[in-house]
């Protein structure tokens, strides 16, 4: 078990390294000149060719790509991700300010998605082809097919503009989080609700469920006691994948609701060709993706002994 654990962690670290190398190459290959942007920040329209060349030389931008990557990686490992070209602040400072905001959005949205998906999936399975099941199926389809920027606009118009009961942007208390949480949770909740519903249906038709019915258990009892624990692994795996994908939703949701998180920073970094900000944020996303997936893998291994067994040829 310990060996397998170490192997997974090692693979995750290798994956992170490969992903940071790839993003470094992609960001470097993108059109635009870091030195020109830094010169523009320092001198506005007064930036000239000589100044740009001097900055490029000072930053080592003329060095070969592997040398630059090694230098960047060395700095990143010590927590130095450079200074944002757009805001002029060290990236470590930006992250310290913004990560809590994004985490609050993701964790709140994740919990909401979890609650909604389980409620919808279980209610659908309990109804089993009835009106409730069909309505929830339709709602899940709509939720999974509606882009989050549209959902955000709709919620703001209804709850902020028409009803005036919830703030439309910024953070000024718990109520400020309701619309962003609902917006970001809608898609994963809809997908996960279908996962719960389909897996419950499958599990309910298995022999042990039939045995439960034969023993006189009610449908509700079989559903909760026998079927639900059996869908934990597929649910956990899909939830992990959806949770990591929520970071993509955060890029839109943070911007629309004026939340100063990492997603909003990333979109502005792209707009302003803040290469240093882009690279640092992409690295953070890579760490987030790999860490969440690793955690889900390890939890699944803990929960299911079959996953802990070494594979046989």
């Amino acid at each position, binding site marked *: 078990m310990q060996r397998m654990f170490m192997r997974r962690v090692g693979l995750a670290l290798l994956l992170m390294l490969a992903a940071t190398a790839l993003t470094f190459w992609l960001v470097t290959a993108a059109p635009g000149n870091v030195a*020109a942007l830094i010169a523009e920040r320092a001198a506005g*329209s007064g930036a000239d060719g000589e100044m740009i060349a001097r900055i490029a030389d000072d930053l080592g931008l003329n060095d070969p790509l592997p040398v630059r990557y090694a230098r960047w990686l060395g700095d990143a490992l010590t927590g130095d991700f450079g200074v944002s070209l757009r805001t002029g602040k060290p990236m470590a400072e930006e992250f310290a300010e913004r990560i809590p905001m994004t985490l609050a959005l993701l964790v709140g949205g994740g919990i909401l998605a979890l609650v909604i998906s389980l409620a919808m999936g279980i209610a659908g399975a309990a109804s089993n082809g009835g009106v409730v099941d069909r309505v929830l199926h339709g709602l899940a389809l709509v939720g999974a097919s509606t882009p989050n920027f549209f959902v955000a606009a709709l919620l703001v118009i209804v709850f902020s503009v028409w009803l005036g009961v919830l703030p439309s942007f910024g953070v000024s208390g*718990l109520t400020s989080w309701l619309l962003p949480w609902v917006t970001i949770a809608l898609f994963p909740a809809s997908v996960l609700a279908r996962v719960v519903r389909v897996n419950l249906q499958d599990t309910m038709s298995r022999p042990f469920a039939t045995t439960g019915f034969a023993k006189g258990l009610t449908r509700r009892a079989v559903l909760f006691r026998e079927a639900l624990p059996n869908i934990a692994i597929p649910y956990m795996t899909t939830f992990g994948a959806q949770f990591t994908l929520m970071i993509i939703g955060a890029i839109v949701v943070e911007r629309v609701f004026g939340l100063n998180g990492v997603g909003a920073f990333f979109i502005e970094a792209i707009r302003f060709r803040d290469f240093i900000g882009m690279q640092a944020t992409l690295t953070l996303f890579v760490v987030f993706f790999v860490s969440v997936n690793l955690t889900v893998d390890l939890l699944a291994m803990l929960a299911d002994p079959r996953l802990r067994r070494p594979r046989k040829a």
Partner: protein
Amino acid sequence: MLKLDRRSFLASTAGLSFLSILPRIAHADGHSDTLRVAIAGETGDLDLLQNVSTLSSYSAVFDALIHYGPGGTLEPGLATAWSVAEDGLSISFDLREGVSFSDGTPFDATAAEWNLKRWMGVADFSWIGIADAYDSIVIDTPNKITVKLKRPVPAALLELTIVRPVRFLSPRAAAGQPIGTGPWIVESYSSTETVLVRNDAYWGEKPAFARMELKVVPDELARANALRAGELDVIGGDWVAALSPRRAQALASEGMTVVAEPGTATTILGFSPQSPMMQDKAVRDAIFLGIDRAAVATVLFEGFADPTVDIFPATVPTAGSRTPVPARDVAAAQAALTAGGWAGDGAGWSKDGAALEIAFLVSEESFPGSRRIAEMIQGMLMEVGIKTNIETVDNATMHDRRPKFDYDLTFFGTYGAPYDPHGSLGASFVTASDTGPDGKIYVHPDLDTLVATALETGGDARTGAMQAVYDWLRDNTAACPLVVTQRLWAVHPRVEGFALPATDYDLPFKGITLG
């Protein structure tokens, strides 16, 4: 009969209680004495020497020696009077007495000298004429200084009205502390908002309300919705939180006050001076005549733009005489091509075996909405017989290709007040100027001479020298001005007395009262 058990009753009661307090929670904090203005990006620490913080917030906190008034009039700021020596080599300023920075440091000749020496004579600020020509500063009295120059700078006084780096910071301010003499004091700033409180010791007319909150809302639709919901009071301004014409129309129809005033920056279609096709004046003439500027202003800007064929609008000083905007004339455009040796008709043109086909470089990032304008122009030119290929690129590619003149046609904009006309002329129409990624609108040796003369000429002769530049540009069809976009703002009905400041680089707060 309705059956209500204890669990349902408790759940319903809790739910109803929560819903009933929501509006109170949402609108808990009072805003009767606070103006809430949307800004598209965080203000930053308002460092006067870095090109990072948003330009529009400086004027609320920092004063300049001279302030830019309507139409480019010079108004007293921290200097109550000034005089330029006859030879133009020194400028004396009488400093306003009894003024202090908001940290209590007195504003006097020593503080003024400390501030001016931070950028005058410094290489990074050589793009400012007075900084480049700087020689020395003499403290005449505790409230009078004289700036000595190596050569005359006719636009020196106008240059002293710009936003950055010319405004005055307390010499005792630590790094990252924005302390000025202006009407507002920065109480706090973060990536979500900057809070300003009224400077009750301000020397000028004090604002009628005590606080101003600059809320960061990057998304334009979110800003409009927040205005509708009453969470914001003011949105708009190209350099603050841009408002699109279409959105402005929608807000106006919903009871919001939309304020539109003539702009100070011109949107110009630039011809690459290095493109063989664009070096042919007949082609430039045909394009100039083939575009319906009124239609562009009406259709794409919803009427919030004014068609023009002049490089600068009348709202900037020494903008030259006004040229009537000609109606679109397809026949005249085709006649220009025929006169230039091109053969063909509305189906296409050719000369010496080469077809008339031009590349139109567009970047939505650099100039939002430009793709739609380009498509409209493409359609107009097609009727003339000019085939136009639109290339949509990102901002970085635009920054890369524009300085190399790697295009046939592309969009440019003049800087607007208070930087024009000297700013755009000196940067965008001079071969030797290094404008970095911005590129230049048009360059030519003859134009270099005329612009240099105009920028060096002061006094009464300046108007004539400037007009000579504008005439050359017009006679040679060196650029194709399209429209002057209006300055657009939308205001919540509770805001009264809203009036726009002289430039879009300033925040509007003067004269405003809150209902």
